[in-house]
């Protein structure tokens, strides 16, 4: 499972950030969202950054305390918050800059696909975010394209 991004369609409105933080925290704070829009203003390009749930995630590789694990049945990357030592190395290692660190608790925020019903996809009105429940598009090709 993962979320596919259609770059051409993203308008940079950041509604995904808001609904993400609202869904996970019941309050609104884009800096606590698991998806982020990187805004390249000068070139008019808005890029959604979200965990692609890589097969060989760098974040898990660098984690000093095995806090980042692969859920094999769901094929997604997950955080074991009990193990997390809040070092932030996962965020630095992520090749897609998709991991955000919670400004308050300092824990990494990684997309969990809202248990199979991602709210950002539901609220994205342009179709820039597409849910890919059964890996119809292979992760390898996605990583390449990204």
């Amino acid at each position, binding site marked *: 499972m993962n979320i596919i991004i259609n770059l*051409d369609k993203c*308008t*940079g*409105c*950041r*509604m995904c950030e*808001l*609904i993400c*933080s*609202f869904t996970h*925290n*019941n*309050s*609104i*704070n*884009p*800096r*606590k969202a698991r998806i982020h829009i*990187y*805004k390249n*203003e*000068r*070139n*008019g*390009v*808005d890029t959604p950054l979200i965990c692609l749930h890589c097969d060989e995630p760098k974040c898990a590789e660098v984690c000093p305390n095995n806090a980042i694990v692969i859920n094999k049945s769901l094929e997604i990357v997950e955080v074991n918050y009990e193990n997390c030592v809040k070092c932030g190395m996962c965020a630095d290692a992520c090749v897609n800059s998709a991991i955000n660190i919670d*400004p*308050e608790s300092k824990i990494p925020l990684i997309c969990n696909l809202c248990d199979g019903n991602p709210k950002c996809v539901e*609220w994205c*009105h*342009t179709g820039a975010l597409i849910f890919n429940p059964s890996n119809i598009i292979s992760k390898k090709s996605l990583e390449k394209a990204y």
Partner: protein
Amino acid sequence: MKSWPLKSIIIDLTSRKIKIRETHENFARLYLGERGFNSRKLWDLVNSETDALNPNNPLLIGIGPLCGTLAPCSSRFTISAKSPLTDILGSSNCGGHFGPELRYAGYNQLIILGKSKYPVYLWIDDENIEIRDARNIWGQDTWKTQEIIMEDLGDATVKSICIGLAGENLVRYACIISGLSSAAGRTGMGAVMGSKNLKAVSIRGTKDIEISEPDKFIVKCKEVFNNIKKARNPKWTSLYLMELNANMLGGSWTGKCELDREIWGPGSSAVKSVGGTRFMEDFMRNMRACFNCPIHCKPFYEVKEGKYSGLIGEGPDYGLTLIAPYCDIREMEPILYMNNLINQYGIDSLSLLHNIAWLMNCYEKKIITTEEVNGLNLIWGNSDAVIELIHLIVKKQGIGKILAEGEKRASKLLGRGSEKFIFPIKGMSETSFPRITGSHAPGYITSTRGGDHLRALFIPATTPKNLLKKYFPELRGGFTLNSKENNVQGYGKVLKWFEDFSAVVNSVGLCIFSCSVAISPRKFEELPEVIADLITTSTGIKFNAKELILAGERIINVEKAFNSREGLTIKDDDYYGAKKIINHSGINQYYKDREIMLNEYYSSRGWDIKTGFQKKSQLERLDLKDIANELEKNKAIVKVI
């Protein structure tokens, strides 16, 4: 009151002192936020002696209770000060991503006082507020300024507002820019910022917005979101609106007008070459949006060939698109180039185009010679000359020095009868002359910030009669485009409602576009209720539709009082000098019906019909007794027993 931060920042740039002030909940209830907060504070902090470019003119940046929340189109913030262009209320609304960031930092208003000895910028990082040296940025354009600040702070997510050369050089209609093209455009707020030696304000906010009733709030947001999604038109770009105006409301731009020449009519080749349809086909690359906005009306464009090949930018805004028909420019590329230029310089497109079109008209009429306009050949359609003129205005060189003074002052400075060819309302030019019908005019002329189309949303001219009657049964007639048999009875009352409603929208943090066209005018009467529900469920402050509209009325009355204290009278609710000059069906109709509409408007507001002044009893009803007392001292109030 869970999510509405009742804290404001007061920064004195002279003494470099920074204070945090609590906002009383009752103040929030009375004035809602954003435009309402600013207008009331402006009344308190300014008097008629204050010069707009003097350090004691405060610069106010306010946000509303819905700003930064999930409520769709909640990006807006308002910047206010006494206007250097009009010398009355200055107030300008802006989108983008800056307003929400102020909210996440935990404040509802920034009050900037005094003047720094050298160029500075403000850095607000939640609780940490700093006045930082900006001498290395002074002189940079608005785009580069934001980039340098991001680099300086080492964070690409910082959101800024800033001025360009126009604001630094105190051009009286300089604006404030955020991002590439979001602008607090009107009434010269950029010049006020420049007069304070303040180059930019940058914010990083990391706090949560707690929602009072999350379950109800999210349902309401989704409902509004779906309504907008259903109603929005993918073609909505400013150039498309310009094309629409020219094609469908052809009367508005045809016939002899204040420019004394034919303007483009429906289906003309000029409209085709610079209209939205061609723009979308040949230049538009992708659409961009303000914060949390499903309408996304900001196209990003790219010029692929010719003289301007490689040019990329965002917009153009509605104001600038009108430079095409006003100055008779029939090529798209120079218009897009001008759009980048004015965004980088930070100058208001609407006032700019009126000043330029006026000068070109004077040139064509030989009121001014080529030598006097720095050797420019200012004939209609000469886009190179217009671009050169923009440089001269911003740099205040040659003829640009006069034009930088704005429409009211420039025509007086030039004299020679040139005053006949520009018609600002209260010192500021509106979008376009009301040549369609007279029905838009009352909304322009009563606007508290001078000639403007956004403060009344006067829909009646374009809304089907049966719908209007449903909501406003007192409407007897209705305008039909270019009809000679219009009955204006009831319009004054409708105008009052739309003004009050616009004040609400401008004060809660929503975009006026989403509350006019996008959610469909068919449902406008229900909108105050929708907004009240959004505020109640998010902040926990209970509001109903009636209270909101009453707050809107209060805000309009504070603004009207501000202008009366500055010396404005009933004579200022009109086009400056238009009656004597223009013979056009729309204008004639406006003057024919003006008295009926205005009398009805003043009486529904509870203002005096003869003088246009407010009545003491009316102000007291709106909890504005202190304002009534001060107006009494200034003899700008009518007492009623």
